Protein backbone atom coordinates (compact mmCIF):
# COMPACT_ATOMS: atom_id res chain seq x y z
CA UNK A 1 0.00 0.00 0.00
CA UNK A 2 1.30 3.41 -0.96
CA UNK A 3 -0.06 6.25 1.13
CA UNK A 4 0.52 9.95 0.53
CA UNK A 5 -0.06 12.35 3.39
CA UNK A 6 -0.47 15.98 2.45
CA UNK A 7 0.89 18.29 5.10
CA UNK A 8 0.89 22.02 5.12
CA UNK A 9 2.99 24.53 7.04
CA UNK A 10 0.84 27.11 8.74
CA UNK A 11 1.64 29.97 11.11
CA UNK A 12 1.58 28.69 14.68
CA UNK A 13 -1.11 29.93 17.00
CA UNK A 14 1.49 31.50 19.25
CA UNK A 15 2.95 33.60 16.44
CA UNK A 16 2.20 37.27 16.48
CA UNK A 17 0.46 37.80 13.17
CA UNK A 18 1.13 41.10 11.38
CA UNK A 19 -0.34 42.17 8.10
CA UNK A 20 2.37 43.02 5.59
CA UNK A 21 2.73 46.27 3.67
CA UNK A 22 0.67 45.04 0.70
CA UNK A 23 -2.33 44.50 3.02
CA UNK A 24 -3.05 41.27 1.19
CA UNK A 25 -0.91 38.87 3.18
CA UNK A 26 0.82 38.45 6.52
CA UNK A 27 4.42 39.26 7.29
CA UNK A 28 5.87 35.76 7.05
CA UNK A 29 9.29 36.73 8.35
CA UNK A 30 8.05 37.00 11.91
CA UNK A 31 5.83 33.94 12.13
CA UNK A 32 6.80 30.47 13.17
CA UNK A 33 5.55 27.85 10.72
CA UNK A 34 4.32 24.56 12.11
CA UNK A 35 2.51 21.50 10.79
CA UNK A 36 -1.20 22.03 10.29
CA UNK A 37 -3.01 20.31 13.12
CA UNK A 38 -5.31 17.92 11.29
CA UNK A 39 -2.43 16.90 9.00
CA UNK A 40 -0.63 15.45 12.04
CA UNK A 41 -3.63 13.22 12.65
CA UNK A 42 -3.67 12.22 8.99
CA UNK A 43 0.00 11.28 9.21
CA UNK A 44 -0.53 9.32 12.42
CA UNK A 45 -3.42 7.44 10.81
CA UNK A 46 -1.25 6.58 7.81
CA UNK A 47 1.62 5.43 10.01
CA UNK A 48 -0.72 3.25 12.06
CA UNK A 49 -2.13 1.68 8.90
CA UNK A 50 1.37 0.96 7.69
CA UNK A 51 2.33 -0.58 11.01
CA UNK A 52 -0.83 -2.66 11.19
CA UNK A 53 -0.55 -3.97 7.65
CA UNK A 54 3.11 -4.72 8.22
CA UNK A 55 3.58 -5.62 4.57
CA UNK A 56 6.16 -3.09 3.47
CA UNK A 57 3.67 -0.31 2.84
CA UNK A 58 5.04 3.11 2.19
CA UNK A 59 4.06 6.45 3.69
CA UNK A 60 5.11 9.54 1.76
CA UNK A 61 4.71 13.04 3.17
CA UNK A 62 3.99 15.68 0.57
CA UNK A 63 3.97 19.40 0.96
CA UNK A 64 3.85 22.46 -1.23
CA UNK A 65 5.00 25.99 -0.61
CA UNK A 66 8.03 28.17 -0.28
CA UNK A 67 11.40 26.75 0.65
CA UNK A 68 11.81 28.89 3.74
CA UNK A 69 8.58 28.03 5.43
CA UNK A 70 7.49 24.61 4.43
CA UNK A 71 10.42 22.31 3.86
CA UNK A 72 10.77 21.84 7.61
CA UNK A 73 7.35 20.24 8.00
CA UNK A 74 8.65 17.39 5.86
CA UNK A 75 11.50 16.82 8.27
CA UNK A 76 8.91 16.55 11.00
CA UNK A 77 7.01 13.91 9.01
CA UNK A 78 10.14 11.95 8.16
CA UNK A 79 11.25 12.08 11.79
CA UNK A 80 7.91 10.62 12.88
CA UNK A 81 8.33 7.69 10.53
CA UNK A 82 7.31 8.57 6.97
CA UNK A 83 9.49 6.73 4.46
CA UNK A 84 10.17 9.58 2.09
CA UNK A 85 9.11 13.09 1.25
CA UNK A 86 8.05 15.07 -1.78
CA UNK A 87 8.37 18.82 -1.69
CA UNK A 88 6.65 20.76 -4.44
CA UNK A 89 8.43 24.04 -4.30
CA UNK A 90 6.30 26.96 -5.28
CA UNK A 91 7.02 30.49 -4.18
CA UNK A 92 3.76 31.80 -5.61
CA UNK A 93 1.35 33.26 -3.09
CA UNK A 94 -1.68 31.98 -5.02
CA UNK A 95 -3.99 30.30 -2.55
CA UNK A 96 -6.75 29.17 -4.89
CA UNK A 97 -7.58 25.56 -3.91
CA UNK A 98 -8.22 24.37 -7.46
CA UNK A 99 -4.88 25.64 -8.77
CA UNK A 100 -3.16 24.06 -5.82
CA UNK A 101 -4.97 20.75 -6.24
CA UNK A 102 -4.00 20.73 -9.92
CA UNK A 103 -0.37 21.26 -9.04
CA UNK A 104 -0.48 18.41 -6.54
CA UNK A 105 -2.27 16.02 -8.86
CA UNK A 106 0.05 16.71 -11.82
CA UNK A 107 3.04 15.94 -9.69
CA UNK A 108 1.61 12.99 -7.81
CA UNK A 109 -0.10 11.24 -10.72
CA UNK A 110 2.83 9.00 -11.59
CA UNK A 111 3.22 7.88 -8.03
CA UNK A 112 -0.06 5.93 -8.27
CA UNK A 113 -0.89 6.25 -4.60
CA UNK A 114 -3.52 3.87 -3.23
CA UNK A 115 -4.48 6.37 -0.59
CA UNK A 116 -4.13 10.11 -0.22
CA UNK A 117 -4.71 11.40 3.29
CA UNK A 118 -5.03 15.07 4.00
CA UNK A 119 -6.07 17.07 7.00
CA UNK A 120 -9.66 18.18 7.18
CA UNK A 121 -8.68 21.74 6.46
CA UNK A 122 -5.73 24.07 6.87
CA UNK A 123 -5.93 26.09 10.03
CA UNK A 124 -4.82 29.29 8.27
CA UNK A 125 -7.20 29.49 5.30
CA UNK A 126 -9.67 26.78 6.14
CA UNK A 127 -11.02 26.08 2.68
CA UNK A 128 -11.00 22.30 3.21
CA UNK A 129 -11.08 21.51 -0.49
CA UNK A 130 -7.63 20.35 -1.49
CA UNK A 131 -8.03 16.67 -0.61
CA UNK A 132 -11.35 16.31 -2.39
CA UNK A 133 -10.18 18.19 -5.47
CA UNK A 134 -7.06 16.07 -5.78
CA UNK A 135 -9.19 12.96 -5.45
CA UNK A 136 -11.40 14.18 -8.25
CA UNK A 137 -8.51 15.20 -10.49
CA UNK A 138 -6.80 11.84 -10.04
CA UNK A 139 -10.00 9.86 -10.48
CA UNK A 140 -10.07 8.61 -6.90
CA UNK A 141 -13.00 7.93 -4.64
CA UNK A 142 -13.19 10.56 -1.94
CA UNK A 143 -14.49 11.11 1.55
CA UNK A 144 -14.17 13.97 3.99
CA UNK A 145 -14.15 14.27 7.78
CA UNK A 146 -12.80 10.79 8.43
CA UNK A 147 -12.69 9.88 12.12
CA UNK A 148 -11.94 6.17 11.85
CA UNK A 149 -10.43 4.03 9.13
CA UNK A 150 -10.49 0.34 8.47
CA UNK A 151 -8.48 -1.15 5.63
CA UNK A 152 -10.11 -4.12 3.98
CA UNK A 153 -9.28 -6.12 0.93
CA UNK A 154 -9.05 -3.60 -1.92
CA UNK A 155 -11.07 -0.98 -0.10
CA UNK A 156 -11.12 1.31 2.87
CA UNK A 157 -13.98 1.85 5.27
CA UNK A 158 -14.24 5.34 6.67
CA UNK A 159 -16.33 6.56 9.54
CA UNK A 160 -17.37 10.10 8.74
CA UNK A 161 -18.45 12.76 11.17
CA UNK A 162 -21.75 14.38 10.23
CA UNK A 163 -23.57 17.17 11.96
CA UNK A 164 -25.13 17.00 15.45
CA UNK A 165 -23.38 13.87 16.63
CA UNK A 166 -24.31 11.74 13.61
CA UNK A 167 -21.84 9.42 11.94
CA UNK A 168 -21.73 7.58 8.67
CA UNK A 169 -19.70 4.61 7.48
CA UNK A 170 -18.71 4.69 3.83
CA UNK A 171 -16.66 2.17 1.91
CA UNK A 172 -14.36 3.47 -0.80
CA UNK A 173 -12.54 1.41 -3.39
CA UNK A 174 -8.85 2.23 -3.91
CA UNK A 175 -7.47 4.58 -4.95
CA UNK A 176 -9.08 6.93 -2.45
CA UNK A 177 -8.53 10.40 -1.10
CA UNK A 178 -9.71 10.97 2.45
CA UNK A 179 -9.55 14.06 4.61
CA UNK A 180 -9.00 13.37 8.27
CA UNK A 181 -10.55 15.10 11.25
CA UNK A 182 -8.42 16.28 14.19
CA UNK A 183 -8.42 14.34 17.42
CA UNK A 184 -8.98 10.85 16.01
CA UNK A 185 -5.73 9.33 17.26
CA UNK A 186 -2.71 10.33 19.30
CA UNK A 187 -0.08 11.74 17.00
CA UNK A 188 3.32 10.48 18.08
CA UNK A 189 6.17 12.84 18.65
CA UNK A 190 9.32 12.11 16.75
CA UNK A 191 11.90 10.16 18.74
CA UNK A 192 15.51 11.25 18.71
CA UNK A 193 16.42 8.29 16.54
CA UNK A 194 13.67 9.27 14.12
CA UNK A 195 14.90 12.84 13.97
CA UNK A 196 18.49 11.84 13.41
CA UNK A 197 17.47 9.19 10.85
CA UNK A 198 15.34 11.63 8.83
CA UNK A 199 18.45 13.09 7.22
CA UNK A 200 19.12 9.84 5.43
CA UNK A 201 15.64 9.48 3.95
CA UNK A 202 14.81 10.47 0.39
CA UNK A 203 13.37 13.93 0.01
CA UNK A 204 12.47 14.86 -3.55
CA UNK A 205 12.14 18.51 -4.55
CA UNK A 206 9.93 19.34 -7.51
CA UNK A 207 9.85 22.79 -9.02
CA UNK A 208 6.13 23.48 -9.18
CA UNK A 209 4.70 26.21 -11.34
CA UNK A 210 1.01 27.00 -11.11
CA UNK A 211 -0.38 26.81 -14.60
CA UNK A 212 -3.73 28.53 -14.20
CA UNK A 213 -4.55 32.08 -13.38
CA UNK A 214 -5.74 32.14 -9.81
CA UNK A 215 -9.47 31.78 -9.37
CA UNK A 216 -9.27 33.70 -6.15
CA UNK A 217 -7.30 36.73 -4.98
CA UNK A 218 -6.95 38.51 -1.69
CA UNK A 219 -8.04 42.08 -2.01
CA UNK A 220 -7.65 43.27 1.50
CA UNK A 221 -6.61 41.69 4.76
CA UNK A 222 -7.47 43.43 7.98
CA UNK A 223 -7.73 42.83 11.69
CA UNK A 224 -11.37 42.96 12.71
CA UNK A 225 -12.25 45.79 15.03
CA UNK A 226 -13.73 44.68 18.30
CA UNK A 227 -17.02 46.45 18.58
CA UNK A 228 -19.43 45.99 21.38
CA UNK A 229 -22.86 47.37 20.79
CA UNK A 230 -25.88 46.95 23.01
CA UNK A 231 -29.24 47.01 21.36
CA UNK A 232 -32.08 48.00 23.58
CA UNK A 233 -35.52 46.69 22.64
CA UNK A 234 -38.25 49.01 23.74
CA UNK A 235 -42.06 49.14 23.44
CA UNK A 236 -44.95 47.15 24.88
CA UNK A 237 -44.59 43.49 25.86
CA UNK A 238 -46.01 42.07 22.63
CA UNK A 239 -43.82 44.35 20.58
CA UNK A 240 -40.71 43.39 22.54
CA UNK A 241 -41.47 39.68 22.20
CA UNK A 242 -42.06 39.98 18.47
CA UNK A 243 -38.86 41.93 17.98
CA UNK A 244 -36.88 39.49 20.11
CA UNK A 245 -38.26 36.51 18.21
CA UNK A 246 -37.30 38.17 14.97
CA UNK A 247 -33.75 38.71 16.16
CA UNK A 248 -33.36 35.17 17.51
CA UNK A 249 -34.78 33.66 14.34
CA UNK A 250 -33.48 35.81 11.57
CA UNK A 251 -30.47 37.67 12.85
CA UNK A 252 -28.82 35.30 15.30
CA UNK A 253 -30.50 32.20 13.84
CA UNK A 254 -30.46 30.38 17.16
CA UNK A 255 -34.04 29.19 16.78
CA UNK A 256 -35.94 28.26 13.69
Amino acid at each position, binding site marked *: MKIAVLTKAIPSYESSIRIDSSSTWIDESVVNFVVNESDSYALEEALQIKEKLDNGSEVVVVTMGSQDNTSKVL*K*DGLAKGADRAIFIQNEDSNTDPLSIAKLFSQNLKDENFDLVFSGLQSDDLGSGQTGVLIGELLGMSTATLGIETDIQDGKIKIKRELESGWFQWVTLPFPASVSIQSGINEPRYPS*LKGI*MGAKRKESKVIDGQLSDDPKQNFINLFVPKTEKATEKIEGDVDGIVAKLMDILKNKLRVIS
Partner: protein
Amino acid sequence: MKYIGPDFCNITSLLTDEELLIQKTANQFVQQEFNPIVNEYYEKGSFPLELLPKMGELGFFGATLPKEFGGSEISSTAYGLIMHELEKGDSGLRSLCSVQGGLVMYPIYKYGTDEQKKKWLPQLSAGTAIGCFGLTESNHGSDPSGMLTRAKRDGDDWIINGSKMWITNGSVADVAVVWARDEEGIVRGFLIEKGTKGFTSSDIHGKMSLRASITSELFMKDVRVPDSSRLPGIKGLKGPLSCLTQARYSIAWGAIGAAVDCYEVALNYSKERKQFSKPIAAFQLTQQKLAHMIQEITKAQLLAIQLGNLKDNNQLDFSHISLGKKNNVAIARDCAKLAREILGANGIMDDYSIMRHMMNLETVYTYEGTNEIHTLIIGQKITGESAFE
Protein backbone atom coordinates in the same frame (compact mmCIF):
# COMPACT_ATOMS: atom_id res chain seq x y z
CA MET B 1 10.68 26.21 13.30
CA LYS B 2 11.92 28.33 16.13
CA TYR B 3 13.56 27.90 19.50
CA ILE B 4 10.75 27.32 22.00
CA GLY B 5 11.21 30.06 24.57
CA PRO B 6 12.04 33.74 24.67
CA ASP B 7 14.39 34.43 21.79
CA PHE B 8 15.52 38.00 22.31
CA CYS B 9 18.73 37.69 20.30
CA ASN B 10 17.61 35.17 17.69
CA ILE B 11 19.40 32.15 19.07
CA THR B 12 17.25 30.15 16.66
CA SER B 13 19.79 31.11 14.02
CA LEU B 14 22.46 29.26 16.04
CA LEU B 15 20.47 26.03 16.17
CA THR B 16 20.03 23.36 13.50
CA ASP B 17 16.70 21.95 12.33
CA GLU B 18 17.45 18.68 14.12
CA GLU B 19 18.15 20.51 17.34
CA LEU B 20 14.88 22.42 17.07
CA LEU B 21 12.90 19.27 16.31
CA ILE B 22 14.48 17.52 19.27
CA GLN B 23 13.56 20.43 21.52
CA LYS B 24 10.01 20.18 20.25
CA THR B 25 9.78 16.48 20.99
CA ALA B 26 10.97 17.08 24.56
CA ASN B 27 8.63 20.05 24.89
CA GLN B 28 5.61 18.00 23.81
CA PHE B 29 6.53 15.14 26.08
CA VAL B 30 6.75 17.43 29.09
CA GLN B 31 3.59 19.33 28.29
CA GLN B 32 1.48 16.29 27.59
CA GLU B 33 2.82 13.64 29.92
CA PHE B 34 4.52 15.41 32.79
CA ASN B 35 3.04 18.83 33.50
CA PRO B 36 -0.47 17.55 34.20
CA ILE B 37 0.82 15.36 37.06
CA VAL B 38 3.80 17.24 38.42
CA ASN B 39 2.00 18.93 41.30
CA GLU B 40 0.56 15.66 42.50
CA TYR B 41 4.01 14.06 42.63
CA TYR B 42 5.61 17.15 44.10
CA GLU B 43 3.13 17.06 46.90
CA LYS B 44 3.57 13.33 47.48
CA GLY B 45 7.33 13.67 47.33
CA SER B 46 7.85 11.05 44.64
CA PHE B 47 8.46 10.67 40.93
CA PRO B 48 6.23 9.11 38.24
CA LEU B 49 8.59 6.26 37.41
CA GLU B 50 6.17 4.90 34.85
CA LEU B 51 7.32 7.70 32.52
CA LEU B 52 10.78 6.17 32.19
CA PRO B 53 10.06 3.70 29.37
CA LYS B 54 8.40 6.49 27.39
CA MET B 55 11.41 8.73 27.90
CA GLY B 56 13.61 5.84 26.88
CA GLU B 57 11.60 5.23 23.75
CA LEU B 58 11.91 8.87 22.77
CA GLY B 59 15.67 8.56 23.27
CA PHE B 60 16.28 10.95 26.15
CA PHE B 61 18.69 8.77 28.15
CA GLY B 62 22.31 8.94 27.10
CA ALA B 63 21.24 10.55 23.86
CA THR B 64 24.72 11.70 22.84
CA LEU B 65 26.18 8.18 23.09
CA PRO B 66 26.84 6.10 19.97
CA LYS B 67 23.88 4.18 18.55
CA GLU B 68 25.30 0.77 19.43
CA PHE B 69 25.09 1.77 23.09
CA GLY B 70 21.54 3.01 22.92
CA GLY B 71 22.28 6.66 22.12
CA SER B 72 21.13 8.70 19.14
CA GLU B 73 24.40 10.54 18.51
CA ILE B 74 22.74 13.91 18.80
CA SER B 75 24.74 17.09 19.27
CA SER B 76 25.52 18.33 22.74
CA THR B 77 23.35 21.36 22.08
CA ALA B 78 20.40 19.13 21.16
CA TYR B 79 20.97 17.22 24.38
CA GLY B 80 21.08 20.52 26.24
CA LEU B 81 17.77 21.53 24.70
CA ILE B 82 16.18 18.33 26.01
CA MET B 83 17.42 19.24 29.50
CA HIS B 84 16.06 22.75 28.99
CA GLU B 85 12.62 21.33 28.28
CA LEU B 86 12.69 18.76 31.08
CA GLU B 87 13.63 21.38 33.65
CA LYS B 88 10.96 23.71 32.31
CA GLY B 89 8.73 20.97 33.66
CA ASP B 90 10.58 20.36 36.92
CA SER B 91 14.17 20.12 38.11
CA GLY B 92 13.35 16.64 39.41
CA LEU B 93 12.58 15.42 35.91
CA ARG B 94 15.80 16.85 34.54
CA SER B 95 17.76 15.46 37.51
CA LEU B 96 16.55 11.98 36.73
CA CYS B 97 17.72 12.29 33.16
CA SER B 98 21.07 13.86 34.12
CA VAL B 99 21.74 11.07 36.59
CA GLN B 100 20.72 8.29 34.23
CA GLY B 101 22.67 9.65 31.26
CA GLY B 102 25.58 11.62 32.69
CA LEU B 103 26.27 9.82 35.94
CA VAL B 104 25.36 6.22 35.20
CA MET B 105 25.41 5.49 31.46
CA TYR B 106 28.41 7.73 30.84
CA PRO B 107 30.81 5.99 33.30
CA ILE B 108 29.66 2.55 32.15
CA TYR B 109 30.20 3.57 28.54
CA LYS B 110 33.49 5.30 29.19
CA TYR B 111 35.10 3.12 31.86
CA GLY B 112 33.12 -0.13 31.78
CA THR B 113 33.91 -3.52 30.27
CA ASP B 114 32.11 -4.77 27.17
CA GLU B 115 30.17 -7.10 29.38
CA GLN B 116 29.03 -4.24 31.65
CA LYS B 117 28.07 -2.14 28.65
CA LYS B 118 26.11 -4.98 27.09
CA LYS B 119 24.32 -5.72 30.29
CA TRP B 120 23.36 -2.22 31.38
CA LEU B 121 23.37 0.32 28.56
CA PRO B 122 20.45 -1.07 26.54
CA GLN B 123 18.22 -1.28 29.62
CA LEU B 124 19.25 2.10 30.94
CA SER B 125 18.71 3.81 27.60
CA ALA B 126 15.32 2.13 27.19
CA GLY B 127 14.30 3.31 30.64
CA THR B 128 13.55 -0.24 31.73
CA ALA B 129 16.33 0.00 34.31
CA ILE B 130 17.12 2.92 36.60
CA GLY B 131 20.57 3.95 37.74
CA CYS B 132 21.95 6.06 40.57
CA PHE B 133 25.29 7.60 41.39
CA GLY B 134 26.72 7.39 44.88
CA LEU B 135 29.55 9.78 45.62
CA THR B 136 28.39 12.11 48.41
CA GLU B 137 28.52 10.92 52.01
CA SER B 138 26.90 12.52 55.02
CA ASN B 139 30.19 14.03 56.16
CA HIS B 140 31.78 14.49 52.75
CA GLY B 141 29.90 16.66 50.29
CA SER B 142 31.91 19.39 48.61
CA ASP B 143 35.10 17.50 49.41
CA PRO B 144 34.47 13.94 48.23
CA SER B 145 38.16 13.13 48.58
CA GLY B 146 37.46 12.58 52.25
CA MET B 147 35.07 9.71 51.51
CA LEU B 148 35.00 6.89 54.03
CA THR B 149 33.41 4.15 51.92
CA ARG B 150 35.96 1.38 51.52
CA ALA B 151 36.46 -1.48 49.07
CA LYS B 152 38.65 -4.33 50.18
CA ARG B 153 39.97 -6.97 47.82
CA ASP B 154 39.08 -10.53 48.77
CA GLY B 155 40.23 -13.09 46.22
CA ASP B 156 38.29 -12.40 43.01
CA ASP B 157 35.80 -10.24 44.88
CA TRP B 158 35.60 -6.90 46.59
CA ILE B 159 33.99 -6.24 49.93
CA ILE B 160 32.44 -2.79 50.20
CA ASN B 161 31.56 -1.02 53.42
CA GLY B 162 30.23 2.47 53.98
CA SER B 163 27.25 4.67 53.24
CA LYS B 164 26.23 7.32 50.75
CA MET B 165 23.89 10.23 51.35
CA TRP B 166 21.67 12.39 49.10
CA ILE B 167 21.55 9.85 46.32
CA THR B 168 19.01 10.65 43.61
CA ASN B 169 16.93 7.53 42.81
CA GLY B 170 18.97 5.53 45.31
CA SER B 171 16.13 3.34 46.54
CA VAL B 172 14.60 2.64 43.14
CA ALA B 173 17.80 2.08 41.19
CA ASP B 174 18.48 -1.29 39.60
CA VAL B 175 22.15 -0.43 39.49
CA ALA B 176 24.20 1.95 41.62
CA VAL B 177 27.53 3.42 40.56
CA VAL B 178 29.27 3.58 43.93
CA TRP B 179 32.63 5.21 44.49
CA ALA B 180 34.87 3.80 47.20
CA ARG B 181 38.53 3.85 48.22
CA ASP B 182 40.54 0.66 48.00
CA GLU B 183 43.15 -0.38 50.51
CA GLU B 184 45.77 1.77 48.79
CA GLY B 185 43.48 4.76 49.06
CA ILE B 186 42.64 4.82 45.33
CA VAL B 187 39.06 5.80 44.44
CA ARG B 188 37.36 3.14 42.34
CA GLY B 189 33.91 2.81 40.83
CA PHE B 190 31.69 -0.25 41.31
CA LEU B 191 28.37 -1.28 39.83
CA ILE B 192 26.25 -2.65 42.63
CA GLU B 193 22.99 -4.31 41.68
CA LYS B 194 19.81 -3.85 43.59
CA GLY B 195 19.24 -6.77 45.95
CA THR B 196 22.92 -7.55 46.47
CA LYS B 197 23.35 -8.89 49.98
CA GLY B 198 24.21 -6.17 52.49
CA PHE B 199 23.21 -3.35 50.10
CA THR B 200 20.21 -1.40 51.41
CA SER B 201 18.70 2.04 51.12
CA SER B 202 16.25 4.34 52.79
CA ASP B 203 14.56 7.41 51.42
CA ILE B 204 15.20 10.88 52.76
CA HIS B 205 11.95 12.52 53.81
CA GLY B 206 11.19 16.11 54.69
CA LYS B 207 12.73 17.76 51.64
CA MET B 208 11.30 21.18 50.89
CA SER B 209 13.03 21.20 47.49
CA LEU B 210 13.24 18.80 44.54
CA ARG B 211 10.28 16.96 45.95
CA ALA B 212 9.36 15.36 42.62
CA SER B 213 12.54 13.32 42.83
CA ILE B 214 13.49 10.42 45.02
CA THR B 215 16.53 11.03 47.22
CA SER B 216 17.96 8.23 49.33
CA GLU B 217 20.70 7.04 51.58
CA LEU B 218 22.65 3.94 50.54
CA PHE B 219 24.17 1.52 53.04
CA MET B 220 26.83 -1.01 52.20
CA LYS B 221 27.52 -3.58 54.87
CA ASP B 222 30.03 -6.21 53.75
CA VAL B 223 28.65 -6.03 50.25
CA ARG B 224 30.48 -8.64 48.19
CA VAL B 225 30.77 -7.98 44.47
CA PRO B 226 32.92 -9.75 41.88
CA ASP B 227 35.83 -7.87 40.31
CA SER B 228 33.74 -7.81 37.10
CA SER B 229 31.55 -5.21 38.85
CA ARG B 230 34.43 -2.77 39.05
CA LEU B 231 34.72 -0.09 36.37
CA PRO B 232 38.22 -0.96 35.17
CA GLY B 233 38.77 2.03 32.91
CA ILE B 234 39.40 4.62 35.60
CA LYS B 235 40.93 5.11 39.00
CA GLY B 236 41.16 8.13 41.24
CA LEU B 237 38.80 10.98 41.91
CA LYS B 238 38.86 12.06 38.30
CA GLY B 239 36.48 9.14 37.66
CA PRO B 240 33.51 10.61 39.51
CA LEU B 241 34.54 14.15 38.63
CA SER B 242 34.48 13.39 34.90
CA CYS B 243 30.92 12.12 35.30
CA LEU B 244 29.96 15.26 37.17
CA THR B 245 31.29 17.29 34.26
CA GLN B 246 28.69 15.59 32.05
CA ALA B 247 25.86 16.13 34.47
CA ARG B 248 26.84 19.71 35.19
CA TYR B 249 26.67 20.45 31.50
CA SER B 250 23.07 19.31 31.52
CA ILE B 251 22.35 21.54 34.51
CA ALA B 252 23.75 24.57 32.70
CA TRP B 253 21.06 23.99 30.09
CA GLY B 254 18.35 22.78 32.41
CA ALA B 255 18.50 25.85 34.61
CA ILE B 256 17.65 28.00 31.59
CA GLY B 257 14.46 26.00 31.20
CA ALA B 258 13.41 26.78 34.76
CA ALA B 259 14.29 30.45 34.25
CA VAL B 260 12.39 30.60 30.96
CA ASP B 261 9.30 29.10 32.52
CA CYS B 262 9.35 31.63 35.35
CA TYR B 263 9.95 34.49 32.93
CA GLU B 264 7.17 33.52 30.55
CA VAL B 265 4.65 33.04 33.31
CA ALA B 266 5.56 36.42 34.82
CA LEU B 267 5.56 38.23 31.49
CA ASN B 268 2.11 36.97 30.56
CA TYR B 269 0.76 37.64 34.01
CA SER B 270 2.11 41.19 34.04
CA LYS B 271 0.34 42.01 30.79
CA GLU B 272 -2.99 40.80 32.09
CA ARG B 273 -2.96 41.82 35.71
CA LYS B 274 -4.26 45.36 36.17
CA GLN B 275 -3.66 47.62 39.16
CA PHE B 276 -4.14 51.37 39.32
CA SER B 277 -6.10 50.89 36.04
CA LYS B 278 -3.05 49.72 34.13
CA PRO B 279 -1.44 46.38 33.37
CA ILE B 280 1.35 45.98 35.93
CA ALA B 281 3.66 45.44 32.93
CA ALA B 282 3.33 49.16 32.31
CA PHE B 283 5.09 50.08 35.54
CA GLN B 284 8.78 50.79 35.38
CA LEU B 285 9.52 48.65 38.41
CA THR B 286 7.90 45.61 36.77
CA GLN B 287 9.68 46.29 33.50
CA GLN B 288 12.98 46.45 35.30
CA LYS B 289 12.38 42.97 36.67
CA LEU B 290 11.32 41.58 33.31
CA ALA B 291 14.16 43.30 31.48
CA HIS B 292 16.65 41.91 33.98
CA MET B 293 15.24 38.43 33.51
CA ILE B 294 15.40 38.46 29.71
CA GLN B 295 18.88 39.95 29.83
CA GLU B 296 20.18 37.18 32.06
CA ILE B 297 18.31 34.46 30.19
CA THR B 298 19.75 35.64 26.89
CA LYS B 299 23.29 35.60 28.26
CA ALA B 300 22.71 32.15 29.73
CA GLN B 301 21.40 30.84 26.39
CA LEU B 302 24.46 32.10 24.53
CA LEU B 303 26.79 30.66 27.13
CA ALA B 304 25.06 27.28 26.97
CA ILE B 305 25.23 27.17 23.18
CA GLN B 306 28.94 27.93 23.29
CA LEU B 307 29.46 25.18 25.87
CA GLY B 308 27.72 22.80 23.47
CA ASN B 309 30.00 23.85 20.63
CA LEU B 310 33.10 23.44 22.76
CA LYS B 311 31.89 20.05 23.94
CA ASP B 312 31.29 18.73 20.44
CA ASN B 313 34.70 20.01 19.34
CA ASN B 314 36.42 18.39 22.32
CA GLN B 315 37.55 21.77 23.55
CA LEU B 316 35.50 21.86 26.70
CA ASP B 317 37.39 22.30 29.93
CA PHE B 318 35.68 21.52 33.24
CA SER B 319 36.16 25.15 34.26
CA HIS B 320 33.95 26.18 31.33
CA ILE B 321 31.23 23.95 32.68
CA SER B 322 31.70 25.40 36.14
CA LEU B 323 31.08 28.82 34.67
CA GLY B 324 27.93 27.59 32.92
CA LYS B 325 26.55 25.71 35.92
CA LYS B 326 27.32 28.53 38.33
CA ASN B 327 25.97 31.34 36.18
CA ASN B 328 22.90 29.67 34.76
CA VAL B 329 21.66 28.26 38.04
CA ALA B 330 22.27 31.57 39.79
CA ILE B 331 20.31 33.52 37.19
CA ALA B 332 17.51 30.98 37.24
CA ARG B 333 17.31 31.39 40.99
CA ASP B 334 17.09 35.18 40.56
CA CYS B 335 14.47 34.85 37.83
CA ALA B 336 12.31 32.63 40.03
CA LYS B 337 12.43 35.20 42.78
CA LEU B 338 11.63 38.14 40.50
CA ALA B 339 8.85 36.23 38.75
CA ARG B 340 7.35 35.34 42.11
CA GLU B 341 7.30 39.01 43.07
CA ILE B 342 5.52 39.94 39.85
CA LEU B 343 2.72 37.48 40.54
CA GLY B 344 2.06 38.89 43.99
CA ALA B 345 -0.01 36.56 46.14
CA ASN B 346 -0.75 34.29 43.19
CA GLY B 347 2.97 33.70 42.95
CA ILE B 348 2.99 31.52 46.03
CA MET B 349 0.32 29.18 44.70
CA ASP B 350 0.83 25.85 42.99
CA ASP B 351 -1.44 27.03 40.19
CA TYR B 352 1.78 28.47 38.83
CA SER B 353 5.11 26.69 38.54
CA ILE B 354 7.25 29.52 39.87
CA MET B 355 7.36 28.66 43.55
CA ARG B 356 8.15 25.03 42.73
CA HIS B 357 11.02 26.13 40.50
CA MET B 358 12.22 28.49 43.21
CA MET B 359 12.34 25.70 45.78
CA ASN B 360 13.90 23.24 43.34
CA LEU B 361 16.62 25.63 42.34
CA GLU B 362 17.91 25.63 45.91
CA THR B 363 18.93 22.02 45.38
CA VAL B 364 20.29 22.71 41.92
CA TYR B 365 22.35 25.57 43.37
CA THR B 366 23.94 23.12 45.81
CA TYR B 367 24.28 19.76 44.12
CA GLU B 368 26.83 18.87 41.49
CA GLY B 369 29.23 21.34 43.05
CA THR B 370 27.90 24.24 45.04
CA ASN B 371 28.02 27.76 43.65
CA GLU B 372 31.01 28.40 45.93
CA ILE B 373 32.91 25.36 44.74
CA HIS B 374 32.43 26.41 41.10
CA THR B 375 33.65 29.86 42.03
CA LEU B 376 36.80 28.28 43.40
CA ILE B 377 37.26 26.16 40.27
CA ILE B 378 37.03 29.26 38.08
CA GLY B 379 39.25 31.16 40.52
CA GLN B 380 41.88 28.47 40.34
CA LYS B 381 41.71 28.44 36.56
CA ILE B 382 42.28 32.17 36.15
CA THR B 383 44.77 32.74 38.98
CA GLY B 384 46.59 29.44 39.05
CA GLU B 385 46.05 29.39 42.83
CA SER B 386 43.92 26.79 44.57
CA ALA B 387 41.74 28.26 47.29
CA PHE B 388 39.96 25.04 48.23
CA GLU B 389 41.90 24.36 51.39
